[in-house]
């Protein structure tokens, strides 16, 4: 086997090992690359920033622990952004495992900004049914969510006073790692009820949301850990997403190198054959 062929058919375990090293080493020895903010993230930031103090934002968590590295930092940054601006958060989720994560991010930010549960934020918990829950909540929030995530009646909470349906919500943000998720919020809350919807999604699904962003169906979009890191950057706070960005860059660079390297030898091999 010639050297060229050997490079073409390299044991994939070597690739696996190099990828692992590209993540482990920068995590142990951080470098500190700069982060540039992209337009969808800027739009997302502005959508929240434009709300007057006292506005109510619905934050729905549609992710689970497996996508935590990407979406959880968004959830944390969003909660901080809202509380910093005195915007109230109504949490909920269409994925059961997203509820504790949403709650944790709100609690953490509430502590930093001295916000109180029931007054400045509330978590309505999980409801099965995806798209149907969105329609039901759009029509009647108290009926759809009579209790909060811990089983307390929502009438007890000041923040829920005067909230009947989506007409009383100023912005809807879905942080989602799949379906049901942003797509359905756009279809129902935006499509059928004309609400402003913004989203945070995993990087993999982000491209599929560009048409919605372009059509104005989405106000802004955070895509993956990078989107979260950019959002953290605009807010001027370094979080877990920013911390992972070094490893991210190195591993990413490695994959680009793989592709260029493989093509270099492929094209070289093709020329030789001629």
């Amino acid at each position, binding site marked *: 086997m010639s050297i060229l062929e050997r490079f073409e058919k390299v044991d994939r375990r070597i690739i696996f090992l190099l990828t692992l090293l590209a993540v482990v080493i920068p995590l142990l020895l951080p470098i500190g690359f700069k982060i540039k903010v992209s337009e969808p993230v800027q739009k997302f930031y502005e959508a929240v920033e434009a709300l007057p103090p006292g506005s109510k934002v619905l934050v729905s968590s549609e992710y689970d622990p497996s996508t935590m590295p990407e979406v959880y930092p968004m959830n944390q940054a969003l909660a901080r952004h809202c509380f910093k601006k005195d915007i109230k958060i109504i949490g909920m989720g269409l994925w059961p495992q997203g509820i504790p994560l949403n709650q944790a991010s709100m609690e953490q930010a509430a502590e930093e900004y001295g916000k109180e549960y029931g007054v400045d934020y509330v978590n309505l918990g999980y409801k099965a049914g995806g798209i149907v829950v969105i329609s039901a909540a759009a029509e009647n929030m108290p009926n759809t969510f009579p209790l909060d995530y811990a089983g307390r009646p929502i009438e007890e909470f000041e923040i829920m006073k*005067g909230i009947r349906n989506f007409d009383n919500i100023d912005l809807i943000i879905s942080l989602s790692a799949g379906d049901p998720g942003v797509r359905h919020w756009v279809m129902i809350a935006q499509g059928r009820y004309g609400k402003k919807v913004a989203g945070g999604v995993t990087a993999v699904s982000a491209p599929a949301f560009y048409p919605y962003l372009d059509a104005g169906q989405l106000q802004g979009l955070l895509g993956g850990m990078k989107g979260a890191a950019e959002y953290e950057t605009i807010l001027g706070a370094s979080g877990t997403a920013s911390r992972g960005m070094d490893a991210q860059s190195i591993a990413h660079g490695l994959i680009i190198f793989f592709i260029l390297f493989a093509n270099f030898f492929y094209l070289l091999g093709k020329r030789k054959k001629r």
Partner: protein
Amino acid sequence: MILMLMVGINVEAFDTPNESSKILSSSELPAPPTEVLVKDKPNDAGGSIIVTWGKSADDVEENELVKEYRVFRSGALDGEFELIGTANKGFEKFVDGTTIDGTQYYYMVKASDGVVHSQSAVSEAVSSSAQWFHTDRISMLVATAIICFLILWFIGKAKKGEELYIRPIAGLEAVDDAVGRATEMGKPIMYIPGIADMDDIQTIASVIILGRVARKAAQYETPLLVPCCRSIVMSAAQETVKEAYISAGRSDAYDADKIMYLTDDQFGYAAGVDGMMLREKPGAIFYMGCFYAESLILAETGHSTGAIQIAGTAMPSQLPFFITACDYTLIGEELFAASAYLSREPLLLGSLKGQDMGKAIIIAILIGGVIMVSLGFTKIIALLATG
């Protein structure tokens, strides 16, 4: 009806004229909201009334005279008005979702800074009702009617025996080869119907394609493994494969245990299928249906076993992975065309032709619409609103 234009000013806590006049003299009282208009919320199941008003003149950034608007309702013009909700400053609309259809209501809005309020005139009488047709959805009704008509029209034509040309689709041409190759190598075939349940049309399409593949597998007497992520999909797959074996005259070879349920969990399923691929060493692997992140986990593992891989999905986000890791990939609509293509039944082929006509109309609207919009006729955009 007569619009009542009396503008009253009062403070909730002080109802006697005396006290009220005290407040009147205070300079802190905000200007009242103007022009309270009410109407039944259109296109709903009833129970909602939309209240709109003009902002108080004091509802401005710089001052705090208006903090919120309070919306009141009464069953009678001179009856008691009760608070039904609030809207933040800067807003001019409130939807009351607690009305009883057919009952008359009167509304009134107060601008408030939390302590003192000034109230608007009382609105006209209004009652809510439910509608039988959603008027914002006419364009959708037309679109649905046209496309369904086209499909049915061409199915009808096909029924009469008209010959229809269908272009080759590489991924589907390869189905026979893949089954054949697995047979030659004496290896089983694996068919993965995705991770969605039967509520997803992709899964239904997948089960239909499974029927066609199973018939070929039965003819070639090659074992067919179908690991499922959903119980209902497993049931439907068993039913379909059994029927395929019967119609191929090989009902004796049908083994229900080869169509098995693993777990509803996305990655638990991926772990199980990956293990199965390495141990069963299939000669051909089909991925048809709705896939999420597990697509590449499965397809890369499948590739490492050396199997021929044919994928098909309508999940735009997963298509790139199948394209890079599989030998053939059905892109979006091609997945739905597979059943017609593999069966060659005229009725199904006719519907493909109908779909094509639908696309032709869409292209015509696209080109015509862009030209019109470029020339300034933007009305077409509103015509396509879907409610």
